């Protein structure tokens, strides 16, 4: 077991020089002029003396990152790439003994460090990628801290770069590859050989702040200006700003207009939903239900539900569709970062205890050349999104609850959804209003160029050119920063240092301070904002969507305590302003007042254009599915479903996400014998040592949206709730979270949206299960070569429920041979419309399953709960995509048992009454349960539709009986092969 080592190390001793100072990870970003920028006079501060710059080059004998990229790039258009080597370069500025840093940058057991490059130039072109000079490397603070600990206090700054050597490619191919996959030019650049710099420290000069008079501009000129400046504001808003200019008697500054258009963007202001009255409709339904468990609905960064023992659990779902479409790694990573901050920004700070990831793309099997121009290949989006979720969520230490990957031809602009659930003491579940004199404390990362115009760009349409033009809208995520304040925030909260807290997401500082200070007013000192990019001008500082930042409203007498706590947890912080009592948003920068807006205009001045609605025509066709006659035809049909992208084994992705961190997980996303069976449920016991449980489920079905968006909405609610009910969660002990994704607004989309919201609001009221949080994205349209590709009307419904005892939760896998398998709920009517089975033939159908009246649906839930309370069933699952078949297979696979079913009775006796309709039908609201042989359930199920489907068998076989004889029989092992391959291939 002892492996040979290429370079046996000499005895390595860390050089230890005692220093009592703990170094500031960062040099204070003083107003340091550039050493390269000798022509411009420094604004303030003194010119730094140039310092020596040295470099250490590190090669790794075991480089998984290089291996991973090599395999990836060979699949993505570079089969000739024969080898890829990554040399990491540490650039060091100051007085440094590089020998002493070698043990830090390299573990000699598998890495070698040298002061010269160790690459042999003859082996292929070498390209070096470094961060932009104006940008700070995320690893710099760690490197400085460790170097100082080693006594190298003469090290003033450091940068990292990577040299990639591409064997088998020529220079031009290598450059193209780097531009496409490896170099994110928002923050990175190619470092050309022989480049000489006199300092490594971030430098750059900001543009001055200007005024932009709109007076006298025609409508056309306004639109042109709006596009040129990437405001993407509708004309009505531009005219409102133009009129405001006359009213205040001065032109607006660039910062003011930027703030107004992004605050009024669909992303921030939900303009579309407000125009249609939809936000009011949903929150009115919730208000009408007046559910006793609802603590906070639709008014905070997340919704809150009463848990047990004076705790509140929270939920929020957030989409990040636009950035994830153009830069999936950064987009998806920051999707998670953002929705986690919504939890941290709930009340006075909730602690995140679970998360989800949902990725809807075009089908990953779509050949790369068939992607519309300007759209990334879907397989790339999926594999990059998996990498990003792993990159972000694992370091955050938040367990993955559900990971769903879905495909629909309309998801060219992809659907990137993530949820976060949290836990907060009841007494900290509601924010206090900031008071005049309170301080605005910015914590976390520094402010950079990343994410500028994210709010407006994501609210507009996406075209083939968008990815080139708006790539600056994509943020870069650094989970270590967010992890640190995730630990610190509950400490601050419990010490009463937080009056209110919110995250910095879309719209950045201006949005966070503007919203928090809406009632009282705030003034900002933009020079106090710590910058990672020295060239940011005032409006960019205000709008930057740099990740991993939060804003805390701190009472002045608590500031010192708050700062001390943040120091202990190594969270950077800076007071950037205070709340005033003047009801204005004000900001100064470099001695000038650059923003002075009335809060009333900022939050009340946005005109809402009327929208007309018109019923869309859907080209729906009745299903024409072939009759299944032979066992071979049945076998093929079964495989069509099990290997469908939505039904197949997605654990190849899921196993890259931590599901058990925090020690709260009771039932994770995968379970059963070999931990690969999807459970469709997540159960957490959030209070260590207690049995109380939080339960989440998720429902999403883009195919249903193609047929009947309104009914799809209702079915998603029923599906998500039934998944939880069959596990034993009372529907009166749960709340819902909605996430809509629809095409860019036009009358037909407005019609669908209105009908969807009306339907779910009505159903929510009828069932008494309230929505408490939600988010809408109304920009799901991709344009390429004059063709618009719309996303299907999409609604994801998440359940957040509670149970008094997690040990009573029932899961899916079969328990015992000989037990009866029952369907509880209707198995009648058409249930193949929108099904996976129909999709496998390229068909949708013309109608969706009719789940019955609210009373009928509730009757099934009540029966399930009664049966559950009497331990009447030992396993169970809700029927959803893939129908009864998928449940039978998964319950068998997860247990090592099998099932023998007979569907002829259920199918009835008419000419169209065939078992495939039952086996593949998606009877939403119906559950499949396993009842002990001899157990009497009839008395409880009296009057409730139910039917015996068959029984659990001891061998791992699935069989379908008919009259006479056997229709089809197969081993679950053979089926598992078909089930587990498709997704694995996507990631390979």
């Amino acid at each position, binding site marked *: *077991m*002892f*492996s040979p*080592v290429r370079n046996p*190390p000499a*005895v*390595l*001793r*860390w050089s*230890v020089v005692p220093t009592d100072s*703990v170094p500031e990870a960062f040099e204070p970003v003083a107003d340091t002029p550039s050493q390269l920028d000798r022509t411009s006079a420094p604004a303030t501060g003194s010119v730094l003396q140039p310092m020596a710059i040295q470099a250490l080059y590190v090669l790794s004998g075991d*480089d*998984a*990152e290089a291996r*991973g990229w090599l395999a990836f790039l060979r699949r993505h258009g570079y089969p000739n790439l024969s080898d890829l080597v990554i040399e990491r370069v540490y650039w060091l500025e100051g007085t440094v003994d590089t020998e002493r840093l070698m043990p*830090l*940058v390299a*573990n*000699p*057991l*598998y890495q070698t460090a040298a002061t010269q490059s160790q690459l042999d130039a003859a082996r292929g072109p070498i390209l070096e990628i470094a961060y932009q000079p104006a940008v700070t490397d*995320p*690893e710099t603070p*760690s*490197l400085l*801290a*460790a170097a100082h*600990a*080693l*006594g190298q206090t003469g090290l003033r700054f450091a940068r990292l770069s990577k040299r990639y050597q591409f064997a088998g490619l020529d220079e031009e191919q290598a450059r193209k590859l780097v531009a496409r996959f490896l170099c994110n030019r928002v923050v990175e650049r190619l470092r050309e050989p022989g480049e000489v710099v006199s300092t490594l420290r971030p430098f750059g000069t900001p543009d001055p702040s200007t005024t932009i008079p709109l007076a006298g501009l025609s409508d056309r000129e306004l639109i042109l200006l709006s596009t040129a400046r990437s405001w993407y504001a509708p004309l009505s808003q531009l005219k409102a700003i133009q009129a405001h200019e006359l009213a205040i008697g001065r032109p607006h500054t660039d910062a003011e207009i930027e703030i107004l258009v992004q605050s009024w963007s669909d992303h921030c202001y939900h303009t579309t939903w407000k125009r249609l009255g939809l936000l009011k409709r949903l929150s009115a339904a919730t208000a009408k239900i007046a559910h006793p468990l609802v603590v906070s609905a639709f008014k905070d960064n997340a919704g809150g539900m009463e848990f047990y023992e004076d705790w509140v659990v929270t939920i929020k779902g957030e989409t990040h569709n636009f950035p994830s479409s153009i830069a999936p790694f950064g987009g998806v990573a920051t999707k998670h970062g953002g929705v986690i901050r919504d939890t941290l920004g709930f009340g006075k700070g909730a602690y995140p205890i679970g998360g989800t990831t949902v990725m809807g793309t075009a089908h990953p099997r779509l050949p790369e050349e068939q992607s519309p121009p300007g759209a990334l290949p879907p397989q790339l989006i999926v594999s990059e999104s998996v990498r990003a979720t*792993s990159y972000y969520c*694992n*370091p955050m*230490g938040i367990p*993955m609850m559900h990971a769903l990957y879905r495909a629909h031809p309309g998801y060219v602009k992809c659907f990137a959804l993530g949820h976060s659930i949290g836990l907060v003491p009841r007494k900290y579940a509601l924010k206090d209003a900031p008071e005049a004199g309170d301080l605005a404390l910015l914590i976390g990362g520094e402010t950079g160029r990343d994410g500028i115009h994210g709010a407006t760009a994501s609210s507009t349409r996406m075209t083939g050119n968008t990815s080139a033009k708006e790539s600056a809208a994509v943020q870069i995520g*650094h989970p*270590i920063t967010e*992890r*640190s304040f995730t*630990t610190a925030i509950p400490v601050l909260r419990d010490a009463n240092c937080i009056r209110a807290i919110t995250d910095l997401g879309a719209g950045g500082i201006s949005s966070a301070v503007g919203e928090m200070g809406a009632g009282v007013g705030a003034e900002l000192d933009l020079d106090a904002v710590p910058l990672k990019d020295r060239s940011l001008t005032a409006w960019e500082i205000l709008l930057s969507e740099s990740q991993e930042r939060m804003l805390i409203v701190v009472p002045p007498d608590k500031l010192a305590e708050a700062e001390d706590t943040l120091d*202990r*947890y190594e969270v950077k912080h800076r007071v950037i302003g205070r709340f005033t009592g003047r009801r204005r948003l004000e900001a100064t920068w470099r001695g000038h007042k650059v923003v002075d807006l009335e809060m009333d205009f900022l939050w009340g001045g946005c005109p809402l254009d009327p929208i007309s609605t018109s019923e869309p025509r859907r080209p729906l066709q009745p299903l024409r599915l072939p009759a299944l006659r032979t066992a071979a035809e049945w076998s093929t049909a079964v495989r069509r479903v099990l290997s469908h992208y939505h039904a197949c084994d997605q654990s190849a992705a*899921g*196993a*890259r*996400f*931590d*599901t*058990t*961190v*925090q*020690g*709260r997980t*009771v039932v994770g996303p995968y379970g059963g014998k070999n931990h690969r069976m999807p459970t469709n449920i997540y159960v957490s*016991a959030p209070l*260590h*040592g207690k*049995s109380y449980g939080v339960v989440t489920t998720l429902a999403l079905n883009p195919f249903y949206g193609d047929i009947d968006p309104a009914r799809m909405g209702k079915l998603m609610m029923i599906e998500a709730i039934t998944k939880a009910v069959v596990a034993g969660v009372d529907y009166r002990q749960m709340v819902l979270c909605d996430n809509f994704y629809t095409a860019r607004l036009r009358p037909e989309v407005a019609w669908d949206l209105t009908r969807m919201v009306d339907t779910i609001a009505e159903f929510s009221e009828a069932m008494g299960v309230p929505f408490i949080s939600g988010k809408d994205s109304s920009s799901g349209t991709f344009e390429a070569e004059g063709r618009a590709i719309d996303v299907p009307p999409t609604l994801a419904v998440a359940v957040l429920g509670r149970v008094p005892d*997690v*040990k009573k939760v029932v899961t899916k896998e079969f328990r015992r041979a000989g037990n009866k398998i029952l369907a509880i709920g209707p198995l009648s009517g058409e249930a193949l419309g929108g099904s996976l089975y129909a999709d496998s033939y390229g068909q949708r159908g013309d109608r969706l399953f009719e789940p019955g009246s609210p009373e009928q649906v509730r009757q099934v839930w009540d029966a399930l709960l009664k049966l559950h309370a009497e331990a009447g069933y030992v396993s169970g699952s809700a029927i959803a995509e893939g129908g009864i078949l998928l449940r039978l297979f998964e319950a068998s696979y997860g247990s090592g048992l099998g099932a023998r079913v007979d569907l002829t009775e259920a199918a009835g006796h008419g000419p169209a009454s065939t078992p495939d309709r039952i086996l593949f039908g998606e009877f939403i609201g119906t559950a499949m349960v396993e009842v002990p042989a001899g157990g009497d359930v009839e008395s409880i199920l009296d009057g409730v539709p139910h039917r015996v489907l068959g029984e659990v068998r001891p061998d791992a076989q699935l069989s379908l009986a008919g009259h006479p004889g056997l229709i089809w029989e197969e081993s679950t092992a053979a089926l598992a092969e078909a089930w587990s391959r498709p997704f694995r291939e996507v990631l390979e």
Partner: protein
Amino acid sequence: MSRAVTAILYAPGTNCHEETAAAIERAGGRSEMVVLRDLCGGRASLRRYQAAVIPGGFSYGDHLGAGRILATMLVARLRDELIAFLDSGKPLLGVCNGFQVLVEAGILPYRTPGSRSMALLENQSSHFEDRKVRLLVTDGDSLWTRGLAGQVLEMPSAHGEGRPLFYAVDGRPPPRVTFRYADAAGNPTPEYPENPNGAPGAVAGITDETGTILGLMPHPERAALPVHYSQDGIKLFRNLMAALR
């Protein structure tokens, strides 16, 4: 309940401190979270504690190599405290990233702070692996595994860099391997994913020569409470409490 208090070390990026505390409490022990910055600034001291755990997470974002920055801080900035702690023979546990820290600091396998003779490399699959694993206890004489020899313990494993590489050091015995990844029959296995990272010899955990310092890639604290799918991990913490009594 023992009066001894176990320190749970917290550094930026640590994320398994809470459940580690919960596991120690369930085993009948007491623990306190000790913030690295407080140790460096003299506001806290390891001398107050009878045992210590370096829990899992991504300390300092895994920058420069998993565990390396925190290891540097321990060895360089807290050298005296660390040596005193080690010399006193107090029990020390590193789980997952904590194991990586112990290895990068040279504390495992040979108690040579600042001198490494082992590495934990990236998983063979080259990505993070979240798995439920079985661990065969192959050394029942350490403080942590007393009475567990031959048992197969089930617990979660979740890491991206856990494949051990050892460097033979003259005059030193091979490291004491306490845990090996096992298959369903309980035998050490090279097979993925039962052996989630491709560990040679299926090595999942080792101790120092005295058996008081344990480094373990899988997470015993996540299999320690009645609500967990397995409670095998609590056995390690019970052994710790027995030793502290």
